[in-house]
């Protein structure tokens, strides 16, 4: 019983709860807020995984920018009211639900059957190599993964233009 385990348990439980809230909430705003909460708790788990940079990026970009965008759109489309009826139970929906449940079972079983590997990467090693720090990640991106980086910047440009074009009422 150490701190790490406790923290993990807390964050995991909260993440699952808010994820459940996302899919079962009645109105869209509630789902969006639940999703923001999920992202925050996930960031906490990322920290536990020694991925500080990604955790910060998660909060900055995902929870900060993307969810804001979502909320803007929800409010723009005036979808705040809750819908009275739940999803209609059609055959496809039942099948989909069963598929998801089945997939969960399969994945858990396969993870459980994974051969256990001794954890060779220890904390002191991580600190020494600067694991997960911005400096190291930055260096890697700008040397080894430069091309994907530039491509992603191009992708963001395209996305911007595309979003503007698609959403315009008159081209």
């Amino acid at each position, binding site marked *: 019983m150490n701190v790490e385990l406790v923290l993990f348990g807390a964050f995991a439980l909260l993440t699952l709860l808010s994820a459940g809230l996302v899919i079962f909430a009645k109105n869209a705003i509630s789902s969006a807020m639940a999703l923001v909460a999920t992202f925050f708790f996930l960031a906490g788990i990322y920290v536990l995984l020694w991925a500080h940079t990604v955790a910060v990026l998660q909060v900055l970009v995902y929870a900060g920018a993307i969810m804001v965008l979502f909320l803007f759109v929800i409010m723009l489309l005036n979808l705040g009211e809750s819908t009275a009826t739940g999803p209609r139970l059609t055959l496809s929906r039942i099948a989909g639900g069963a598929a998801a449940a089945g*997939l969960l079972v399969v994945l858990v079983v396969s993870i459980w059957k994974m051969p256990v590997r001794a954890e060779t990467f220890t904390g002191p090693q991580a600190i020494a190599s600067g694991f997960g720090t911005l400096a190291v990640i930055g260096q890697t991106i700008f040397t080894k993964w430069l091309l994907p980086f530039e491509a992603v910047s191009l992708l963001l440009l395209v996305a911007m233009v595309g979003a503007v074009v698609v959403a315009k009422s008159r081209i």
Partner: protein
Amino acid sequence: MDALKQFFMTAPVDPTVFAQSLWLIIALPLLGAFVCGVFGKMLGRANVHLIACAAVAGSFFLSVLAFWSVSHVQGGVPVSTENPFSAGVIRYAISADYGTWFSAGTFRVNYGLMVDHLSGILLLVITGVGFLIHLYSTSYMEHDEAYWRYFAYLNLFVAAMLTLVLADSLVLLFVGWEGVGMASYLLIGFWYSDTAKAWAGRKAFVTNRIGDFAFLIGSFLVVLLVGAFNAQATSGNFAQLGGNTEAAQVRFREGLQQRGPLSFRGLEVMANALPATADAAQGGVSLQSTIAEGPLAGRTFGGVLTVALLLFLLGAAGKSAQFPLYVWLPDAMAGPTPVSALIHAATMVTAGVYLFSRMSFLLVMSPTAMVTIAIIGTFTSLVAALIAFAQDDIKKVLAYSTVSQLGIMFMGVGMGIFWAAVLHLVTHAFFKACLFLGAGSVMHGNADETDIKKLGGVRREMPWTWATFLIATLAITGIVPLSGFFSKDAIFHGVHHNHLHGYEWASNALYYVGLLIAACTAFYMSRLYLLTFEGKRSAEAKVAHAHESSWYMTLPLVVLAVLSVVALVYALPLMPGRNGPQPVMENFLGPVFASAERIAARGKLVELDHSVPTLGNYLVAWLVVVASGAFAAFMYMKFFPSRAGQPAPAFARSARRFAQNKFYVDEAYEFLVIRPVKNVSAILYKLVDTVLIDTVAVRGTAWVTARVGSALRYVQTGDAQAYAAVMALALLGGAVYALIQVLQ
């Protein structure tokens, strides 16, 4: 005299050079057929006549050159061509090989043409008589609208028949065989707008087809036989051929590779190398040894050969109108008369006789097959002669007469007197063509009247026709000194004196039946002649006076009549032979039948006699014929007219009706064969074709596909979530599969 002989033995063109142009003989009529058929209507009547006759005339000219070439002797050495199957050469022959047609494994067929004395004679007959008939047709068909089609078919027929005669392998012969069958069908059903005539053509073709099927199976058996021989033969076999045995076997194998198993040369070498009994074989295979492997394993060479020859007999029976496949020839009279003259008298129906003459060396190895051929020939001949007694249609009488004479030729071939059968083939071509053309002339002059009971007294009104018809009738009945007498008598003499091992009774029996047939021939031919030409004009005649035909029609008649007389020279014993004077034809065809003679002498299964008929034999034959002719004259000129008005006795009337209805053979076939086949076919049509295949298989498949399609349509809901659900399920399936794989 010597200079004349020298002239005839020196060909104007070098034979080996000429041999390369042999294909032209076939190509000219084929080209004529194409031009007349495609452009005939545009070209007009005169041009079509010119092209058709010129094509056949050109062929005739080349045939004369070919005939001259194979008689060519230079410095005492006769013209010869290389034998691809043995070290020796084939004398008095020229040949040309134009490459491979197709090959599959060890089986190969080449375009090979060959002329020897046998095919040389037939070439002259086909092209010569063919040309005369083309000339005749220009006048006979002058009122017909479809003249271009007629001449195209006629040229096509000549081309196919020439292919048959020039072929040097069984397969190419079969091509010609089928070709003449097709041309015959087209020409019999020429006036196809009349259903009965069209059905006559159909009957001819279907009956021929049955024979063709037997021919094919026979050829397949021969291929297997040659293969077995090649596999099992040892040097002892090839020692029979003389010379170096090793080289002979190698050469034979080489020949098989280059020319295929169905080349006549190869079959001849195999026949020479296959003795009759094991002790004569010196360790090799003989007719009595069994075949070791393959589909024929366990059967003897002799047995397989006999079966193959019997199948060829069935094929020849179809083509040459013998029992049981003769029923098409009388019906074939529905075609124009020149067609009957050319195809059903002179050339196509002789294809069976030609086939057996070509394969004489195989025939003499099987006495069973030979006696069967002879018996079939005799039986057919007698039955046809009896039917001809009671026919009133002039063309039908001549048709049955053709069947009867072909039976005599088959009798000759069956008993091994090959040269006489070929001689009778040639003389029969002349006088039967003359008879048919004469009948056509009579019909033409009497407003197409064919019933001889309604003719009579034509002699005074159509003198040229009368004279030639009389000469031809005398020739066919066998009155001295016309050619028919000699050729027929040569056959009967040969039948009497040749012996087949195991069937010695056949020689005498068939000889006496042959004399009976000669008597019958004289009777019905005299009846035909007398009722048509002599006596008073019948009261029921369509026209009061007949008019003579134009020179286009009478000239061929005269030429053929002259030939009927002159051909007797070939039967006279003028040439020096082994045992004294030999008939010209026998000497002439000596090189062709040399293998057969040698095999017969060696094997002792067939004893071939070479004696010449004595004066006594001639006298007997002549008396039989004259008596029968006189009897016919008495009956029809004196007896029946004197009893006009008195009813004939009952049995005579019923016998006459029986004969007139062709002994009800057609009806029997209808009942025994055609009706069951039609019933089976109807069942197959209604049950298998309409229900099983059409409704269940074809429409059923379409119906099922349409149903499944309309059922599956409901999957396309347009609901993206449903599609996503399907994808999720698939993903789940994949994950489970991967998990199971890993866990194993």
